[in-house]
């Protein structure tokens, strides 16, 4: 009788430890977001939790925060442009290296993924030096160029993943039936890898919209972006409007994510 009971102890202790650690981790992943949401509806001018009363005053205050709105608009513009260009560059790159198992393809793949490993802040500073050396003044365009390098890896990753699931026989069939490479791409490849590209585009958009390390060096007062603006406000004086702005960002993220889940199966593309 001793043996089964010992095994039971082993099994239950394993489950208990794994379950407890996972529960703590889930709690910590979700809890801060909920705190910010609740705090953003406070009726007072402090970030006390729990708030003594609830109101929408800080959300209405956002309507007058022109500087913040301008920063948000800049962020949207830059993220949209960086995403569009990353999708074009990343998809064509993925088509070239995704289906090859050659050594050079592996090497190129790790080079194109390296922006995720290198400290992005060092790259941001390098970009600032580069643009000032070749005499290009900073603008939203230079910011977009800086963001693309850190956005491309996301498109590349998800597109290569969906290309690896694409049956090459389909392409051969299309080509042998007389369709040209371009027609084949448009009518066969693209519909099949579209979800992968869309998931990558979504991640690239979020990566650009949220980027601080590169934007830190490539923006000035005119081209200020939202994360930097919020960071400055939080760093200097804690303004409850940042909680409301955070609330707006959280709602927007959840809506975008649900949409991405619906149309691109986001969580399936990521793992």
């Amino acid at each position, binding site marked *: 009788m001793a043996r089964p009971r010992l095994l039971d102890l082993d099994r239950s202790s394993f489950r208990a430890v794994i379950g407890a650690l996972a529960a703590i*981790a889930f709690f910590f992943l979700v809890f801060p977001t909920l705190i*910010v949401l609740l705090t953003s509806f406070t009726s007072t001018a402090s970030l006390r*939790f729990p708030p003594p009363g609830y109101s929408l005053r800080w959300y209405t205050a956002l309507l007058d925060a022109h500087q913040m709105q301008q920063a948000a608009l800049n962020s949207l513009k830059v993220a949209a442009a960086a995403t569009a260009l990353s999708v074009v560059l990343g998809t064509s790159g993925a088509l070239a290296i995704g289906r090859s198992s050659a050594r050079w393809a592996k090497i*190129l793949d790790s080079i194109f993924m390296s922006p995720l490993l290198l400290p992005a802040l*060092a790259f941001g500073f390098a970009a600032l030096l580069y643009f000032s050396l070749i005499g290009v003044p900073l603008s939203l365009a230079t910011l977009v160029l800086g963001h693309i390098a850190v956005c491309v890896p996301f498109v590349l990753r998800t597109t290569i993943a969906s290309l690896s699931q694409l049956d090459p026989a389909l392409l051969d069939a299309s080509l042998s039936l007389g369709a040209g490479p371009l027609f084949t791409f448009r009518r066969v490849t693209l519909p099949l890898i579209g979800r992968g590209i869309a998931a990558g585009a979504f991640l690239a958009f979020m990566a650009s919209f949220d980027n601080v390390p590169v934007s*830190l060096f490539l923006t000035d007062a005119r081209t200020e972006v939202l*994360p930097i603006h919020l*960071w400055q406000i939080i760093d200097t004086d804690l303004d409850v409007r940042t909680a409301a702005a*955070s609330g707006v*960002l959280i709602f927007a993220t959840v809506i975008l994510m649900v949409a991405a889940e619906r149309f691109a199966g986001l969580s399936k593309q990521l793992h």
Partner: protein
Amino acid sequence: MTAAPAAEHDPEKRAPVFEKIMLQQKVKARWRFVEKSSRFDAPEWRLLLPLGAFFVLFFAAPLVVLFLVSLSDGIALNGFTVAHYAKFLTDAFSLSILFDTVVLGIKATAVCLVFGLPLAWVCVHAHPRLRSLLVFLVILPILTSVVVRTFAWIVILGQQGILNKTFLSLGLIDHPLRLLFSEVGVVMVLAQVQMPLMVLPLITTLQRIDPNLADASRALGAGHWRTFRRVILPLWLPGLVAGSILVFAACTTAFVTQTLIGGARLVYMPLYIYQQATGANNWPFAAAMSVLLMISVLLVVYLLNLAGRARWAVRHG
């Protein structure tokens, strides 16, 4: 053909040899086909040109410029000097900042591992319906702005924050803890903020491990813990290394979290570089610091890779 012995006509007897020949033919045909199609696909490398050109112009070139500036007297690349490196490497204060940054990354990565492994385990072994919700919850934080998530922790960790108020009312502490502006706070918040980077590769690799292996191990008498340590963990190692590398790299460059949670007293490399580059306007020195930070991060990444491979060789070599 009808005159042939019956045995030759018996498909069951002929099948093995026949199939073998067929298979050989098929393999040969497949190889010819692969060769042909790869020749046919040759124009595909041209698809690489836009991305390749972009990377050379706007990724590699800036890094080369960074390196050159770090070795020169000024931004105009005049004069060659290693003075900036010498200044950094002989200054105890600067060296301690670089050291602290690497240690911070290692600590946050360790915390991420301790909680990320169970998290990924639960995600993979949960009921399929529950699983997609759990994965959704894991992804959500990484897509919420880093500034927002860090801001949330300021509300939680502050002297008047929830954590201190709860601890005080429970009588666990007499006076508020200094969690904000402490290293413990920075490690905690970094681990939370970067957790999804750890969990996603872990989920991917855990899914690929054949569940029969764990069942076999348990059927042969190994307990859950032993099975986890001896069967699952070695096979999980590639995901562990991939997640650790991503988290470590992200933590060492996490400017927002480091500055907002660490405050002005806890200085890490990103803030130090930023101060030198903008405040002190000392670009070559900041460039040398950036290069040193990159080398340190890549060194740790290389060691992590090496550790993963060494374990692999011990198990399977």
